[in-house]
């Protein structure tokens, strides 16, 4: 009797786990699956399979430009995020000073406060300053939302670092700058890569902030996709590019996990 109830409980348990993963994964699976649809409008089950939308995506000039904007913006934002975030994290992890907790709270605030509320304010401020839809405007916004990720990851990295290693290098005659370059940096290299990857991803995927401050000239890929989704007509080319982006994120994520064990640092 008891064994029978146990079996029932275990089955229900496994079923709920299965449902949860179907919910999580279904949209991604369907996205990739429907990008190979041969028809003009997505229909289930698809009537034919083809690579025609991928071919069209490679040829399309407009898509290349919006992907280019996204990639450029994300690269610049990630670079600034890693440099600025690492400097701040170094100060937070090494120098004990009065008010350091307040500083940490301020620097991590964009992770806690809702971005939609911020975007409403930014929309108006950018209109006043006349920088909405400009590259500098997008860059400032993207740097601001990505820096906290670098600060957080790098603070954890620096505080795990054994200060004796640097002290040893200095006592053996290395100048502090040399000790930083030859001892500290290599030890936090995986954190730097992770910060850059997360910052790039956050910037590349951002739609909330970008769509509020978007203009006509600098349109990122998510903003373009978003306007298509709102006007109820998604171009199959967009689906193909979206599927390709998800595939790239997955492959790079798994590679990072194998190389650097990223999931343990988050």
């Amino acid at each position, binding site marked *: 009797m008891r064994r029978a109830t146990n079996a029932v409980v275990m089955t229900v348990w496994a079923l709920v786990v299965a449902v949860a993963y179907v919910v999580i994964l*279904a949209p991604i699976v369907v996205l990739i699956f*429907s990008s190979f649809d041969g028809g003009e409008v*997505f229909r289930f089950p698809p009537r034919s399979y083809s690579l025609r939308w991928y071919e069209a995506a490679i040829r399309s000039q407009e898509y290349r430009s919006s992907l280019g904007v996204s990639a450029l913006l994300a690269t610049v934002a990630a670079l600034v995020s890693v440099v600025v975030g690492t400097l701040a994290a170094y100060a937070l992890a090494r120098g004990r000073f009065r008010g350091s907790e307040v500083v940490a709270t*301020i620097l991590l605030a964009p992770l806690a406060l809702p971005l939609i*509320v911020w975007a409403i304010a930014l929309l*108006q401020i950018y209109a006043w300053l006349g920088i909405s839809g400009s590259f500098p405007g997008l860059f400032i916004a993207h740097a601001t939302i990505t820096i906290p990720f670098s600060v957080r990851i790098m603070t954890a990295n620096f505080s795990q670092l054994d200060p004796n290693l640097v002290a040893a290098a200095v006592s053996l005659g290395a100048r502090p700058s040399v000790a930083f370059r030859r001892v500290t940096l290599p030890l936090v290299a995986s954190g730097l890569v992770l910060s850059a990857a997360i910052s790039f991803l956050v910037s590349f995927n951002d739609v909330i902030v970008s769509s509020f401050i978007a203009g006509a000239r600098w349109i990122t890929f998510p903003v373009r996709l978003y306007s298509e989704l709102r006007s109820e007509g998604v171009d199959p080319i967009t689906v193909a590019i979206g599927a390709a982006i998800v595939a790239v994120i997955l492959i790079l994520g798994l590679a990072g996990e194998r190389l650097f064990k990223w*999931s343990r640092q988050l």
Partner: protein
Amino acid sequence: MSRTSTILLLAPAMLLIGVAFLLPFLLLVLAGFWSQPPGSWIVDPTFTLKNYARIATDAYYVTAFARTIWLSLFTVAICLLLGFPVARWIASRRPLHSFLAITMLLPLVAGALLQTLGLVNLLSLLGVVNGALKSLGLIDSSIRFLGTELGILIGLVQAFLPLMVLPLATVLAKLPKELEQAAMSLGAPRLAVWRRVILPLSVPGILAGSVLVFCAALTSFVTPQVLGQGKIPTFATIAYQQAALVLDWPFASALAVSLLVILGVALVIFAGIRRFALRRHGVAT
């Protein structure tokens, strides 16, 4: 490390976050008390409570706020029901647990918008779900998911389930296995072990996950906008409307501040529940 170098290291980040991030919040609070005459784009910065009075009395905004709150509460409840077994599976180091844990991160990294696109294909009238149900003979005509609250709810659960599972799994993984075994070996029935040992000890994880999911759902923008197809006003969609389309900046600010207040109240309530639950079960924090 000297004081000057600390300041120099922190300056760029503090400048960017302080000026570009925190200053706008301050402006929002101020602007919420300003007004803008209809048809004009010029803001009148004399103090008024007009915007807040409009939010509190106009049925359209009250309903939208109420809808956003109950949608978020339902999202929390469903995420908890689905997420608890997953979190326990991940924490108990059964087969596949590390694979399941990494898979859980997927919705967080794959991009909200791309997944919403997948959901649209999944839930549309000619989509996968309706197609599958029809070919199984369960329904005759398609169910309308898009443009309904049900569609939004599915989207919110899909997007935010990981926010429940990850903190919960962390807490569950720290529970000593011996506690359960001790209770069992002393003759406690399975149900009692759950009620008196496992659930009370997982309260911190449940609350941490609930707070994250609730806040994320309450402020979510893409999901209600796209899956609601503009037919279901929620907080984020009306705020966007006012800020970007109607261009009533003071009113949009008041809406945004109201949301912050609701978030703050929710956090206080969650903290209260946490204190109550911990005292009742005598679990040390």
